[in-house]
């Protein structure tokens, strides 16, 4: 009998960088509509291990988000009262 080894299933969805896949998608601090996809509801930047962005685009993205925060186009945090 073959011993079946049960491995815990690892989520292995193929992650692709959305900015590499779609060259028409630009990273711009003046465009909070696009940037909003890459922050959590609370306004935190989603890490690239989750979003699947490549290092280069993640770098540009986080810079853009920080600029957008500075000029009040995006929140630093959302204060939610529970």
């Amino acid at each position: 009998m073959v011993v079946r080894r049960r491995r815990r299933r690892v989520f292995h969805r193929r992650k692709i960088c959305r900015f590499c896949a779609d060259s028409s998608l630009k990273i711009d601090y003046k465009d909070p509509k696009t940037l909003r996809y890459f922050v959590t509801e609370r306004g935190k930047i989603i890490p690239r291990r989750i979003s699947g962005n490549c290092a280069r685009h993640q770098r540009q993205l986080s810079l853009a988000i920080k600029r957008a925060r500075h000029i009040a186009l995006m929140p630093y945090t959302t204060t939610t009262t529970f």
Partner: protein
Amino acid sequence: MRRYETLFIIDPELTDEGLKDVAEKFKNIILADKGHIIKYDEWGKRKLAYPVRKREYGFYVLLDYCGPSDIVNELERNMRIDERILKYITVKLSDSFDQEDLEKMKAAEAPEQKEAPPEEVPEKTGEAFVEEETKESEESSETEEEAEVDTESGEAPSKKE
């Protein structure tokens, strides 16, 4: 020259007249510092992502310009001390932006130019060339200002939202 953009937030409680004064002031600072205004784009009143100096809204303006590198210091220094400016951010768009790029951009914006033949200027001395170009672009930026003032008053009712 370098090309920059400065996005800034004006106190939304200013009157149309007040907004016009702000526009004049900062446009003049750029012109006085040997810069050129490429665009003064008023986004209008927007909700801020977080309150700034107790304001929930802000009047956003995107100023696109070119000039020597110290122009940013001068502009930001003036914005810092101006009570009417809530926030600003400046980003460099291009390291090298010359008269030629500027003329190209102006030409693209206003295609219906009265027969202005492209001058063959390379033979002229650099000085004379620059002087002439500066005059021209200053004139055109003045007409731009006028046009913007018109739209401003035309759009005024939309601010009541």
